[in-house]
């Protein structure tokens, strides 16, 4: 399992500041997104859902390693 951090509405949907997702070696960001959507279909209703890996927006094809800090980024609304 890997830990995925949540903020904003993602924290409300998940019911806490993090969630666990089954991890498989070489897992891509796209695969992670699919796993998140499967567990919490409410994410489908958001305007967007990005993934940050180690403080950077991650492309769908980036491979996640177990040491990475992985964060769900729902639509931002700062400023």
């Amino acid at each position, binding site marked *: 399992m890997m830990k995925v*951090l949540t*903020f*904003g*509405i993602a*924290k*409300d949907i998940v019911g806490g500041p993090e969630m666990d997702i089954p991890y498989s070696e070489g897992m891509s960001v796209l695969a992670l997104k699919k796993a998140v959507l499967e567990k919490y279909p409410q994410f489908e*209703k*958001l*305007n967007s859902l990005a993934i*940050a890996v180690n*403080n*950077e*927006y991650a492309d769908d094809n980036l491979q996640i390693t177990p040491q990475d800090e992985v*964060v769900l*980024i*729902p*639509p*931002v*609304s*700062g*400023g």
Partner: protein
Amino acid sequence: MENCIDIQISDKPLSEQTCLEFVAHPGAGGIVNFIGTVRNQTQGKAVIKLEFEAYISMAISEMRKIAELASQKWPIQKMAIHHRVGTLAVGEIAVIISVACPHRKAAFEACSFAIDTLKETVPIWKKEFFENGAVWIAAHP
């Protein structure tokens, strides 16, 4: 540009004076400040208060990227971007962006670019509280 950029996220009230003092530069001819404040209504619904939550480490990194990118596009001498987090009342300052340039046109363009980009890329989330509920802004269509 390293010492010419000041990025801050704070749960204390922001100070325009602090930003202005940071961007002061003897060669500056124009300083443009953008100050975003909490509005009392959104689409006609009265806003009671507002909460900002940030993924702080990444938000700092994305704000710095904006300042660095702006510095490549315009001849910026000094730039400060301060964002508030936590609970804010109507009228309080949510964000300050200050840009000093030799000439004013560049300062206007860079400041406008910075706030536009901040609203698109920086992982900070705003929750508005109304009489009968609360909404995470921009989350849903």
